[in-house]
């Protein structure tokens, strides 16, 4: 949210089997101007390569947090945000 318009990047984090499928726990990606929600970001990421496609293959089991707060697919995302994707939590 603390965006610098000249740096349209977001930090994307992956946990549990999403991390294993993507192959990295964290990546910094350039955010296209037309990607404004977490749901749109998922589509954008899933189209990148086979690893990302596999991670997002079952959208129903993917949960999201934007800037360390749980968020749905309609949540706004913008430059500077930290967006995390992970399966439903299983702590406790």
């Amino acid at each position, binding site marked *: 949210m603390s965006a610098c318009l000249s740096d349209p990047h977001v930090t994307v984090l992956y946990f549990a089997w999403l991390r294993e499928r993507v192959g990295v726990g964290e990546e910094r990606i350039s955010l296209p101007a037309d990607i404004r929600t977490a749901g749109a970001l998922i589509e954008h990421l899933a189209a990148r390569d086979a690893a990302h496609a596999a991670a997002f293959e079952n959208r129903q089991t993917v949960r999201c947090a934007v800037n360390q707060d749980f968020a749905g697919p309609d949540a706004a995302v913008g430059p500077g945000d930290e967006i995390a994707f*992970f399966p*439903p939590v*299983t*702590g*406790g």
Partner: protein
Amino acid sequence: MSTIRVQEAAFDTGAEIARLTEGRPDIGGIGCFVGTVRATRAHPIAALTLEHYPAMTELALARIAAEATARWHLLGCTLIHRVGRLLPGEPIVLVLAAAGHREAALEATAFLIDWLKTKAPFWKKETLVDGAETWVDARDTDDAAAARWA
């Protein structure tokens, strides 16, 4: 007063209760839950590995503690969650809720573990005795348990 910790080391439940109640004679009851790594003959796991989202975890636990404190007027609350590799029988999570009376303490304890299971960013991977590894699926019953406090 809330104590929130995420750690690899085991916790000392007696010491945590003492810390929570120290100098607070207005406390009448402490509810407590300890979750442990479960292994049975039908499901013989060798270990459980806990992963979490470090930047978010303590924030999420603090939100859960604040919600319980407000709802049940808690006089103190402790949430400690372990991460890393844990063996069968080892403690995973400690929940403590202190209140003037037992009803609030025990209800808040149930609420805290229900919300923690569905609203804190932890993930469990099981290692079976044959070496196979599987990420644990979320249980529908956990969502139902959390929903009763909505």
